[in-house]
C-alpha cells in the first residue's frame, strides 16, 4: 500500500477512535449526534476496507474467473447478470424493513451507548459477515436457499430445523409488526385515515400498472407517493372534522381489521394489492431513509438521552430485562439478522455477475442497513428521556393514567409533565402520546423533530410526524402481506407432502385454508399482545429477537460447516465467533424469558403470579398465553441446539480427518467475461 493511502487510513482510524471514545467516555454533558455518525462511517470504512477484504481473500478466496449462476444459468428471468450497484440497491431494498428502525428505538431505554456499540461491532464482525458469506456460498451453489444448504451441507435434520425456524420467525415477526402498527394507530384518526387510504391507493396503482400504463412501475410509484402525501393532509382534515370519530379506533378494532387485511392480501391476486404496495413502500422507504440521513447531517441534533441509564439493571419500562442479553436481541436488523440470510440465499445470488461483487453487495448492503439503525438510535435519543419513556412505556409498567406515569418517570430522574406531553401531542396532531408502545411513535416523534428543525419548524411538525408514521406503517404492512404469503407458501409446500393438492399454489381451497391458518397463527399472538397490560411488546419483541437471532445462528452454522469443508478451518473463527456470541445471547435470553423468577421477565413466573393473584376475566387465557410463549421459546432453543450439535459433529469429524469433506458446490466453470474480471 502506498504511503499516502496508509496515511489516509490512519487518519480514518484516528478519527473513528476519537468519535468512539467521545461516545463511550463523555458523560458530563449531552453530545452531538454527529459523533455517532462519524464513528459509524469510520467503522464501516475500516471494516469494509480491511476486514471484509481479509474475509474475501483469505477465507472465501473469491474467484473472479469463476462463472456465477447468473452467467451459467442465465434465463432472462431469475438468473440475470446485473451491475453490482443495481444488485446492491435491489438487495438493500429487500433487507431494509422496520426492524432497524424499531429495535434501536426500543434499546435506547438503556441509553445510546450500548445499542450504538452493538450496532457497529455487531454489523462489522457478525451481520455483514453473515450476509456476505451466505451470499457467496449460495452463489457457489446455484442460488440455493439457506434451508437447502443446511440440508446438503449439515444434515437432513438441519434442513428441517431451518424450515421450522423460518416459519416460526415469520409468525412471530408478523405478530410483532402488526402489534407495532396497532399501537401506532390506536385512537389516532389522522394515522388511521392515512394508512387506510394506502389500500385504495395501492389498488389504484395495481389497475394503473396492469391496464392503463402496463409496466410503468416508477411512474405508478410516483403517482402513489403523491396520493399518499395527499392522504396525509387529508388525514389532518379528517382528524379535525366530524368524521374523526369514525377513524378513532380502539386497539382491538384495529387488530381485527389488520387480521382481515392480512387474509385478504394473502388470498387476493398479487398484482392487485401486494405488488403495488411493495413498490410504493420501497419508493417511500428509499426516499425517506435518504432524507433522514440528510436531515441528521443538516440539523446535527444533540442527544438528550444519557449514554447509560439506570435500566441496564433490567428494570426498564419499555421492556424488562438486563442489558445482557436483552440489548443484543432487541437490536437485530441493525447489527445481525437471521432474516437477511434468507434474502442472501434468495433472489440476490441469482443476479451476481462476478464473485468479488458479493463483498460489496453482501457486506456493503448490510453496512447501509446498520447505518439506518444508527439513524434510528439518533432519532430516539434526540427526544427528552422523560418524553421517550412516557411514549414507549406500557400502562402496566409506569401507572394506569398520565398523572401516575409522569410521577413514576420523573421519580426515576427523567422529568416530564402531563402539560409537556399534552403540548407535544397537540403539536403532532394527536390526542395523547402516553403509552404508545412499540417504538414506531417514538421514532416518528424523533424523526419529526429532526425534519421540522430542518424544514418548517413546529408549525409542520404534525405533518412530519404523520409522514413518519405513514412511512413506518407502509412498510410494516408490506412485511405483513408479503410475510403472510411467504408463510402460506411454506405451509403449502410442507402440507403438499401429506396431501398433494394442498401443495398446489394455484388451487384456491388450499390458498384460502393455508392463508387462514397462517393469519390465525400470527393473529393469535397479535391478539395476545393487544390484551397484554404490559403493552405486548414486553413479551413479543424479545421473542421475535430470539427467533431472529436463532435463525442467524442457523445461518452461521451453515457458513462455518462450509468453511471447514473448504479446508479453511484455520479461519473458522470468522463465523464461529459470532456464532458463539449469538448462541450465548439467545440461549441466555431464552433462559430468562422462560425461567427468570422476575414476573416482568420470566414467562412462567408471570403465569405463576397470575395464578396466585385474584381471579379476573380472561385469567386462564393469559396464563395459557405465557405458557405458550415459553413453549415456543423453548422449542426454538431445542431445535437450534440440534443444528449446533450436528454442525459441531461435522466440524470435528472433518478437522480430525475421520471424515472426508463432501462439499456440494457447483463445478467450476470459467467465466466468459474474463476481460472484465482482469
Amino acid at each position, binding site marked *: 500500500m502506498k504511503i499516502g493511502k496508509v496515511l489516509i487510513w490512519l487518519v480514518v482510524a484516528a478519527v473513528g477512535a476519537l468519535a468512539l471514545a467521545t461516545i463511550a467516555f463523555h458523560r458530563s454533558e449531552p453530545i452531538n449526534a454527529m459523533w455517532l455518525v462519524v464513528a459509524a462511517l469510520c467503522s464501516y470504512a475500516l471494516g469494509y476496507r480491511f476486514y471484509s477484504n481479509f474475509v474475501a481473500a483469505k477465507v472465501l478466496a473469491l474467484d473472479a474467473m469463476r462463472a456465477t449462476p447468473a452467467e451459467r444459468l442465465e434465463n432472462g428471468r431469475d438468473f440475470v447478470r446485473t451491475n453490482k450497484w443495481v444488485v446492491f440497491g435491489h438487495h438493500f431494498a429487500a433487507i431494509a424493513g422496520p426492524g432497524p428502525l424499531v429495535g434501536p428505538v426500543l434499546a435506547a431505554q438503556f441509553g445510546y451507548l450500548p445499542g450504538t456499540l452493538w450496532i457497529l461491532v455487531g454489523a462489522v464482525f457478525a451481520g455483514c459477515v453473515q450476509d456476505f458469506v451466505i451470499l457467496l456460498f449460495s452463489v457457489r451453489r446455484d442460488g440455493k436457499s439457506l434451508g437447502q444448504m443446511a440440508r446438503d451441507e449439515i444434515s437432513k435434520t438441519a434442513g428441517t430445523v431451518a424450515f421450522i425456524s423460518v416459519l416460526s420467525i415469520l409468525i412471530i415477526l408478523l405478530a410483532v409488526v402488526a402489534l407495532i402498527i396497532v399501537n401506532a394507530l390506536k385512537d389516532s384518526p389522522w394515522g388511521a385515515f392515512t394508512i387506510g387510504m394506502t389500500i385504495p391507493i395501492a389498488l389504484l396503482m395495481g389497475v394503473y400498472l396492469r391496464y392503463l400504463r402496463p409496466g410503468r412501475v416508477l411512474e405508478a410509484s410516483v403517482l402513489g407517493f403523491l396520493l399518499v402525501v395527499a392522504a396525509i393532509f387529508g388525514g389532518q382534515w379528517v382528524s379535525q372534522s366530524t368524521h374523526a370519530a369514525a377513524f378513532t379506533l380502539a386497539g382491538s378494532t384495529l387488530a381485527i381489521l389488520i387480521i382481515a387485511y392480512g387474509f385478504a392480501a394473502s388470498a387476493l391476486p398479487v398484482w392487485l394489492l401486494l*405488488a403495488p404496495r411493495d413498490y410504493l413502500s420501497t419508493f417511500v422507504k428509499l426516499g425517506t431513509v435518504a432524507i433522514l440521513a440528510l436531515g441528521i447531517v443538516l440539523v446535527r441534533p444533540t442527544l438528550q438521552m444519557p449514554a447509560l441509564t439506570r435500566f441496564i439493571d433490567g428494570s426498564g419500562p419499555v421492556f424488562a430485562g438486563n442489558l445482557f442479553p436483552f440489548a443484543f436481541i432487541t437490536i437485530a436488523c441493525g447489527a445481525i439478522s437471521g432474516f437477511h440470510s434468507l434474502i442472501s440465499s434468495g433472489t440476490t445470488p441469482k443476479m451476481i455477475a462476478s464473485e468479488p461483487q458479493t463483498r460489496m453487495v453482501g457486506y456493503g448492503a448490510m453496512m447501509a442497513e446498520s447505518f439506518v439503525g444508527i439513524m434510528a438510535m439518533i432519532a430516539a435519543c434526540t427526544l427528552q428521556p422523560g418524553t421517550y419513556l412516557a411514549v414507549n412505556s406500557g400502562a402496566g409498567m409506569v401507572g394506569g393514567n398520565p398523572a401516575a406515569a409522569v410521577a413514576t418517570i420523573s421519580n426515576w430522574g427523567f422529568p416530564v409533565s402531563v402539560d409537556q406531553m399534552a403540548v407535544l401531542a397537540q403539536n403532532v396532531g394527536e390526542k395523547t402520546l402516553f403509552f404508545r408502545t412499540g417504538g414506531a411513535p417514538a421514532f416518528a416523534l424523533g424523526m419529526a423533530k429532526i425534519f421540522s428543525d430542518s424544514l418548517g419548524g413546529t408549525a409542520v411538525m404534525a405533518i412530519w410526524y404523520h409522514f413518519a408514521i405513514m412511512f413506518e406503517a407502509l412498510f410494516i404492512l408490506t412485511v405483513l402481506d408479503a410475510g403472510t404469503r411467504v408463510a402460506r407458501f411454506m405451509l403449502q409446500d410442507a402440507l403438499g407432502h401429506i396431501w398433494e393438492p394442498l401443495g398446489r399454489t394455484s388451487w384456491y381451497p388450499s390458498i384460502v385454508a393455508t392463508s387462514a391458518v397462517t393469519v390465525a397463527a400470527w393473529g393469535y399472538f397479535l391478539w395476545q399482545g393487544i390484551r397484554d397490560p404490559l403493552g405486548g411488546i414486553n413479551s413479543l419483541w424479545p421473542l421475535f429477537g430470539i427467533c431472529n437471532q436463532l435463525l442467524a445462528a442457523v445461518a452461521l452454522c451453515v457458513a462455518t460447516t462450509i468453511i471447514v469443508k473448504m479446508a479453511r478451518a484455520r479461519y473458522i473463527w470468522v463465523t464461529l465467533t459470532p456464532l458463539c456470541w449469538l448462541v450465548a445471547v439467545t440461549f441466555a435470553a431464552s433462559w430468562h424469558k422462560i425461567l427468570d423468577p422476575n414476573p416482568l421477565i420470566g414467562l412462567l413466573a408471570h403465569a405463576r403470579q397470575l395464578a396466585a393473584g385474584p381471579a379476573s376475566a380472561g385469567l386462564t387465557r393469559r396464563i395459557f398465553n405465557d405458557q405458550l410463549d415459553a413453549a415456543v421459546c423453548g422449542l426454538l432453543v431445542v431445535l437450534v441446539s440440534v443444528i449446533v450439535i450436528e454442525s459441531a459433529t461435522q466440524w470435528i469429524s472433518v478437522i480430525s480427518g475421520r471424515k472426508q469433506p463432501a462439499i456440494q458446490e457447483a463445478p467450476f466453470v470459467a467465466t466468459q467475461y474474463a476481460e472484465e474480471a482482469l
Partner: protein
Amino acid sequence: MKASGDRVIGDAAYICQPERVGANATASRRIPGMPVSKHAASGSSHESVEPVLRMFQNAWKIIRAMLREIFDESAYDRFLLRTQSSRSIASYREFAQERDAAMLKKPRCC
C-alpha cells in the same frame, strides 16, 4: 403488437441484455445496468467540466438502472425480449402471472 408511443425494449435491452440486442455498440461485453457513456471525449472548450458532467451522467444512469431493477421495470423489459412481445396489457398480464410465483417466495426483511 406495439403500443403507440411506447419505447419498447431498445433502451431496456441496452441496459439489461446488451448481447441480445446485437448492437454493434456493444462490442465488448457489458454488465446489465452499466451502459457505456455515449459521450466520447470531445476536446471542446468545456474539457475541465466534462469529466464532472460525465461522472454525474454515469451516476444518474446507475441510479436509474437500480430503480428500474428494484421496481421490476427491467424484469418486464427482459420478459418482453424473451417472449418477443411488446408492451401491452396482455403481455403485462402474462409477466405479472410469471412474477406472482416469484413474489410468493420473495421474503422481505423485518
